[in-house]
Structure formats: C-alpha cells, structure tokens
C-alpha cells in the first residue's frame, strides 16, 4: 500500500474541511445540504447493499447479524468499564459516552468503502447489514447502563418508563435506520433493468457526493475538535484507544469468526471501531439529560471520527491484510 493510495479524494476533502475550520475560514455549507447528502448517501448505500445481498446467500448473512448484535451490546459495556475504572468518569457521563461506541458511523463506513474502491479491493455484501443493524442495540444498552448508573448513584430515577418506551420505539423508527433498511429492501426486490435506471444517480455519482459530505464533516469535526480542552486528556485518549479496542474485536470477528476477505474484514473492523454521531446522541440527550453533551459529541465527532477517517481506515486495512495473509484459517 503506497502513500498515493491514501490520497483518496474523499479523505482529502475531509482534510480540506478540517483545514478550513483550522484557519477559521468563513466556508460554511448550508445545513440542509448536509441533510440532503446524508439522505442521498444512506439510500445509495442501502440500495447498493440490497442489490448485493439479493445476489448472495442469505443463510451466510446470519453470522453477520449476530456479530452486529454482539458488537452493539458488548462494546458499550467494555467502554463503560474502561471509563469508570480507568477514567473515574462519573457514571452517567460514562453511560452516555459508552452507548456511542457500540453504534456505528455511516460516514466512516462510506469512507472505508471509498478507500477500498480507490485501491480496487472487493468486499462481502454482509457488512452493510451490520451497518443497518448496529445503530439500535447500542441505544438499548445505553438505556440499561443509564439505569444501572442511576441505581449506583442511589438517586430517584429521573427518566420515567414512558420515556424509555418512547426511546426504544424511536430507536427502531429512526429516520436514518428506516431509510437504510427501506432502501436495502428496495434494492433487494427490484429487477436488474429497473435498478439500472436508478443506478447512475445512486451509484455513478455516489463517490463525488461523498466528497462534499466529507468536506462538510471535516468542518464539523474541526469545530468539535477545537473544544477538546473541555473534555480533558483522558477522554481524548479514550477517543483514540476505544476505536482501537473495537478494531481489534472487529479484526478478530471479521477474520476468524466470519471468515471474510480482506475488504470484508476491513469493513467489519471499521464498524466495530466507529462511533455514532447520528442516532445515539439525541437518544442519550433525552435518556441521560444529566450527561454533558459536549463530552460525547467532542469524542465522537471531534476525536474518534477524524481518527478513523484519517488514520484508522488505512491502518485497519493493513491489519486485515496482515491477518489474512498470516493466519489464513483454512
């Protein structure tokens, strides 16, 4: 893997966005533009994934589903323990932060797809299912951790049952998850000639639109990064260490348990290492109003996301490559 393979346009645009933020440029993308591109990209991933799944063996998808659930439930607990034991972070903030790490970042996933595409590496159809599944369980675990934390603190449970129900329903009717699942289903059922008609919009121009999205995310990450002082050194370190822990789990699961190709392992690793900034933050804001949003937002958007995009993805790919060549299990 040469240096030039790191010069993926999408990642360079991310860097451009961060640079714009760094030099305090007045560059600003309209907020609605961001929402539109997210909608477009989610549908695009969904359709593409659905089409790929339609052509693959669905029995083999089950292990991916289990892996997704395991990540979604396991990683937040690991994160919670680390935050509590090593960082002495107060229980409610720890719970809120943890939930984010069980979930995924579609932006990181798409950057990884762009990265793999740039160096011509193929991958399995299943990771996209994991992407769609992983957003919700982490929210549930976040609620459980919050309840546990409140018990520790001994205070009255501020969050009533109605809210929990509301949050659980929301976790499954969440717009982006619905869009992802819905377009996966559509990609699955439509005939090839029908798909061909919409392919130019959803596939041909996808990578370009992703560049604009990542440029915007770069600015957003830069803004958050500039607040890193408020979160302290420990949390910043955690924001880099936690994706690495997730990555190790992802590499292990992707290679030994799922037995994917290098591309597939990379994507599974990226899913495990990434951290939500779409569905989980609003849920945690509602479920744990006592937690400080600037903690989990700075970590998720300002530390872990840029780390994964700029450093993580190539690293995970290299690790997947090494693993695949060294411990070839068959």
């Amino acid at each position: 893997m040469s240096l030039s393979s790191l010069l993926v346009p999408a990642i360079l645009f991310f860097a451009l966005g961060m640079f714009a933020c760094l030099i305090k440029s007045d560059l600003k993308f309209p907020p609605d533009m961001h929402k539109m591109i997210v909608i477009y990209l989610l549908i695009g991933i969904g359709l593409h994934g659905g089409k790929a799944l339609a052509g693959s063996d669905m029995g083999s998808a089950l292990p991916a589903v289990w892996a997704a659930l395991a990540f979604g439930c396991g990683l937040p607990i690991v994160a919670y323990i680390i935050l509590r034991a090593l960082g002495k972070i107060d229980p409610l903030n720890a719970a809120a932060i943890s939930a984010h790490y069980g979930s995924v970042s579609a932006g990181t996933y798409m950057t990884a797809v762009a990265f793999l595409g740039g160096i011509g590496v193929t991958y399995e159809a299943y990771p996209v299912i994991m992407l769609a599944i992983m957003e919700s369980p982490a929210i549930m675990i976040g609620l459980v951790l919050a309840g546990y934390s409140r018990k520790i603190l001994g205070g009255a449970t501020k969050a009533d049952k109605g809210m929990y129900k509301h949050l659980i329903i929301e976790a499954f009717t969440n717009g982006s998850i619905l869009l992802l699942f819905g377009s996966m289903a559509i990609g699955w059922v439509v005939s090839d000639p029908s798909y061909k008609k919409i392919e130019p919009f959803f596939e041909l121009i996808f990578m370009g639109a992703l560049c604009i999205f990542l440029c915007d995310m770069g600015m957003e990450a830069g803004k958050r990064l500039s607040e890193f002082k408020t979160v302290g050194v420990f949390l910043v370190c955690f924001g880099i260490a936690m994706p690495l822990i997730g990555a190790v789990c992802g590499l292990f699961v992707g290679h030994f348990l799922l037995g994917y190709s290098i591309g597939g392992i990379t994507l599974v690793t990226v899913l495990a290492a990434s951290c939500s900034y779409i569905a989980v933050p609003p849920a945690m804001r509602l479920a744990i109003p006592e937690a400080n949003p600037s903690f989990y937002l700075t970590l998720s958007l300002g530390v872990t996301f840029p780390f994964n995009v700029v450093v993580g993805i190539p690293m995970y790919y290299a690790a997947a490559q090494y693993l695949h060549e060294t411990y070839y299990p068959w």
Partner: protein
Amino acid sequence: MVLRPDILVTMKRIEIVIDEKSLDDMLRLLRDADVRGYTVIKKAGGLGSTGERNPDDYVLEEHNAVMVLACEEDQAEKVIMTLQPKLKDFGGMCLISDCQWVIGPAASL
C-alpha cells in the same frame, strides 16, 4: 399617549417559549381556551433550565418555538388558567404584559 383612544384597545400580550416538539400540544390547549389568534416563530434557540438549545447544531439540533398572542384581559385569564397547570411539563417560559391593539378603520368593521 396622545393617540386617539378610539383606535386602541387595551389587551394582554402573552409570550410563550417552548420546545418545538411540544408546540402542537400547546396549540391544542390554546384552541381549547378559545384562542382565535396567535403568531408562532419556529427554529428559535435558547438557554433555560434544561440547558442550551441550538437550532444550528449539527448533531443535537433542538428548536424552540416562540408564540405571541394578544387577547382581551378575561380571555388572557382563561388562557393562563388553562396553561398554568401544564407549564411544568412544557418547560420554557410564559410571560404576560400589557399592550394596546390598534384597530383598523371603523368603516369596514
């Protein structure tokens, strides 16, 4: 004020700020109190007991709605009596002040 009193009616001005998500519930309450006029401005931000609400935040986009309604004193009382028990649930703020409504030309009344 030197303004001719025949074009001014003394009224109450009620100004409410709440989470945009609760706006529909609030409007339903207002309609129950027979309110026949109000103005709503959405996408407001603010700071209150539940922290900051920033409509421009990328991830945690939260909006307040600002509502202004002018009504006669007894109507205002009715509105306040309807709203007051729910105010804790809605959060936000509810202010009352005095104002004068300028009425249009008598001819077309």
